[in-house]
C-alpha cells in the first residue's frame, strides 16, 4: 500500500518495552521515523525537542499519568495524539478525547487498526479545513451552501441534523465524544442528560443517510464514548 505519510515522525510514549519494540518495528517497517520515551516527563521533553508529527501515548505511565502528559503537550502544541488504553475504562478514553486527544486505540490492538488511525490523524493535519465540499463516496456535503447530496439527490436535513453531520464529517475518521458533539452543535449550554437527544438526532440522520441503520456505513457508534464518521478511502 502506498503511504503518503511516509517519513512522518512518530513519538511513542509507553513504559512497556515490549509494546515500544512492537510499535517501533512495525511502524518503521511502514517507513515512519520513530522516537521513544518510557515515561511521562521524558515524553513531554521529547515532544518539545524532536517535534514529532504524531504522538502515540499510553495512558498508564509510571511517573505522571498519560492524561497529564496530554494536557501539558496541549498547552503549546496541537500535534495529533493517539491514546493507547486498556479496554475497560470508557471514562479515561472520553476524558482523553475531550482534552484534545485525536483518537484512541485499546490494548490489545490490531496493528492494522493502529496504522489506519495514524494515517487518519496525520491526514487530518495535512488537510486544510477550508475545503468547501466534503466528499465521501456517494455522499457530498457542500459546506458553502449547507446542502447534502446522497447518490446525486439532495437530502432534506433539519438544521440540527445538518450541523451534526457537518461536525462529524469535518473530523471524518476520528472519534468524537458525545460531549464534543453537544458542545459543537448545541453550544455550551448542555447537560449530561442531553445525550439522549443526541441519540435521537443521530438516529434520524442515520435513517436519512444509511441504507440499513443497524449496519451504518457513515456514522458508527463507539459504545459509551461517542461517534465516528467513517471515511472509506
Amino acid at each position, binding site marked *: 500500500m502506498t503511504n503518503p505519510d511516509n517519513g512522518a515522525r512518530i513519538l511513542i510514549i509507553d513504559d512497556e518495552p515490549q509494546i515500544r519494540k512492537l510499535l517501533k518495528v512495525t511502524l518503521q517497517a511502514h517507513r515512519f521515523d520513530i522516537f521513544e520515551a518510557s515515561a511521562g516527563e521524558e515524553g513531554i521533553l521529547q515532544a518539545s525537542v524532536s517535534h514529532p508529527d504524531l504522538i502515540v501515548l499510553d495512558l498508564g505511565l509510571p511517573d505522571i499519568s498519560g492524561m497529564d502528559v496530554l494536557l501539558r503537550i496541549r498547552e503549546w502544541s496541537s500535534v495529533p495524539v493517539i491514546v493507547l488504553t486498556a479496554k*475497560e475504562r470508557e471514562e479515561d478514553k472520553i476524558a482523553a478525547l475531550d482534552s484534545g486527544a485525536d483518537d484512541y486505540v485499546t490494548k490489545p490492538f490490531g496493528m492494522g487498526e493502529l496504522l489506519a488511525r495514524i494515517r487518519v490523524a496525520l491526514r487530518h493535519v495535512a488537510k486544510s479545513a477550508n475545503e468547501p465540499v466534503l466528499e465521501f463516496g456517494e455522499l457530498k456535503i457542500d459546506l458553502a451552501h449547507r446542502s447534502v447530496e446522497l447518490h446525486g439527490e439532495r437530502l*432534506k436535513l433539519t*438544521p*440540527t441534523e445538518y450541523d451534526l453531520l457537518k461536525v462529524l464529517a469535518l473530523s471524518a475518521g476520528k472519534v468524537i465524544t458525545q460531549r464534543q458533539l453537544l458542545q459543537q452543535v448545541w453550544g455550551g449550554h448542555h447537560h449530561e442528560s442531553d445525550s439522549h437527544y443526541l*441519540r435521537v438526532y*443521530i438516529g434520524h440522520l442515520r435513517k436519512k443517510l444509511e441504507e440499513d441503520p443497524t*449496519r451504518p456505513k457513515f456514522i*458508527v457508534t463507539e*459504545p459509551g464514548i461517542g461517534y465516528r464518521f467513517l471515511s472509506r478511502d
Partner: protein
Amino acid sequence: MERSRNGKHTIISKRGRSRIGEWFRRKAVFVREDEAGTSSIFSWSPYVWITALIGLLTAVLHPFGLFLDPVNIALIYLIPVLLSAAYGGIGPSFYAALLGVLAFDFFFVPPFLSFTVADLRYLISFAVFLAVAGLTGSLAARLKQQLRFSKQREAHTASLYELSRQMSAITDIHSLLANVTRKVSEMIQTQAAIYLPDEHDELRLTAASPGHSDGGQSESERMIAKWVFQHGEAAGKGSGVLRETSGFYVPLRTEDRVYGVLAIKLEKESGAIPPDTRRLLEALGGLAAIAIARLKLTEEARIAHLSAESEKLRTALLDSVSHELRTPLATIIGSATGLIEGDKLFSPEDRLELLAAIRDGALRMNRLVANLLGMVKLESGMLQLRKKWCDLEDIIGVVLAQVKDFQQHREINVKLPERVPVLLGDEVLLEQMLVNVVSNSIKYSPDYSRIAISVKADEDNVEISVADSGVGLSAADRERIFEKFYRAGRTKHIPGTGLGLAICKGIAELHGGTISAQPNVEGGTVMTIALPQNEESRRNPSLQEGRNYNDDEPG
C-alpha cells in the same frame, strides 16, 4: 369490681401482700389489661355492698321476724355470704358471715336490739353459721382463683404459641430478637433486652424492647447477664441468685447450649417475680433459644453450601483456565518458535498460516481473559451501571459490527418494531451482553445458517430475541447454561469456558431483567433477554419522537 378484688386475692399471700399487690397492679402480670388496669390494693366497695345488702335484708326481714322461725332467718342471712363468696372471695365472705351473725343476733335473737344472747344454744347456731360461711367462701374463692389461673395460663400458652409461630417465619436473627423483646415487654409490661455473645464470646446487648434504657446500670447488668450466660441459670430478683438486683435474667438455653440471656428490668421498689411469670419467661427463653439455634444451623448450612459451591467453582475455574489458556498458548508458542527457529524452512504461505495461528490464539486468550475479568467484576460487585439512554437500534448496530468478522457465512437478520424502544441502561454492558449472545448463536450454529435478532416492546418490557438454527439445547441444559463454567453436553467439543452466558445473566440482572433460552420452532435455540422499561422511558415521548428539543423545520 369483682375482677379487681380477684386480682388482689389471688395473688396475695401471707407476707407482704400490699407490696406485691402494688407490684402486680403496676406491672400487670395479668394477661388481660383491663383486669390489670382496674385492680387496686384493697377495695372497699364489696364491703359496702355487703353492708348495704345485709342492712336491706334486715330491714325487710325485721317486720316478719317475729313470725318466722329464727332458723329460717339465719338461712336467709346465708345468701349474702354465698353471693360474696362467689363474686368477692374469702375476705368479703367472712365479712358477710360476721355481719350476718351480728345482724341476726341484734335483731332476731332475744333479747332483741341487743347483742346479748339469752339462749346460749344460739351460740352453736352462730358457730355453725360461721363455719358454713367460711367453708363455702373459701371453696368459692379457690374455684375462682383456679379459674383465673387457668385463664392466665391459657393466655400465656396462647402468647407462647403465637410467638413460636412468628419465630418460625423469621429468617433474620435481628428481627427475631427484636420480636422476642417486643413480645416480652408487651406481655410483662416492662423493658426487655437480649444479650448474645459476639465473635469474641463477649456478651453484647443485641436487642432491646422499645424504650429500653441502659441508664447507669448497664455494666452491672452485663455482669449479671454474663454470670447467667456462663451458669445457664436464671438470676435476679426472686431467684436464688443475686436477688438484690433490679432485674431478672433468664438464660436462652436449649438442651445442650446457652445461646444468650434475656434480661427484664424491674422497678426498684417492686418485689420478686411471681412463679408463673417466671415460668413464662423461661418458656420464652427456651423458645428464643430454639429459634436462635435454628437460625444458626441454617446459617452454618448456608456457609457450608457456599464453600462447597466455591470449591466447585475453583475446580471449574482451574480446569477451564488451564485448558482454555494453555491451548492458545501452545499454538502461539509453537508457531512463534517454529518461525524463529526454522526461518528458512517455511514458504511465505506457511509463514502466513503460522502468523494467523498466533493471532487467533492470542485473540482467543484475550476473549477468555476479558470474560474472566468480567466475571470477577460482576462477582465482586465492582460493575457499576452507568445508566444512560440507550437506543437499541444503535446497540444492535454496534453488535453487528463487532461480530462481522466472526459470523463468516451466517446471515444475521434484524427485525425492529416501528418505534425502536429507548432504554435506560449501561450501553457498554448491554452491548457486551448482546455480543455474547449473538456470538454464542454464531458459535453453535452451522455456517450458511440464519440468525434472527428481533426486538419486541410492550408497556413494561423490552424483549430482545436471538434465534439460531443450531444444535439446540436439552431441557435440562436450558436452565444451566447460565451457570458459570457450565457447558452444555452436546457442545462440549466446541472450545469455550462457559462464562459468556453467565456474564450475560449477570448484566441482565443488573438491569433488573432476565435472560432465558427456549427451543426454536425450526430447531436451534432462541435466547430472550427481557429488560424492564422504566417509567421515564414510557413517559418521555420526546425520546421516540425527538421533535421537541429545538427548531426543526427541514432546511
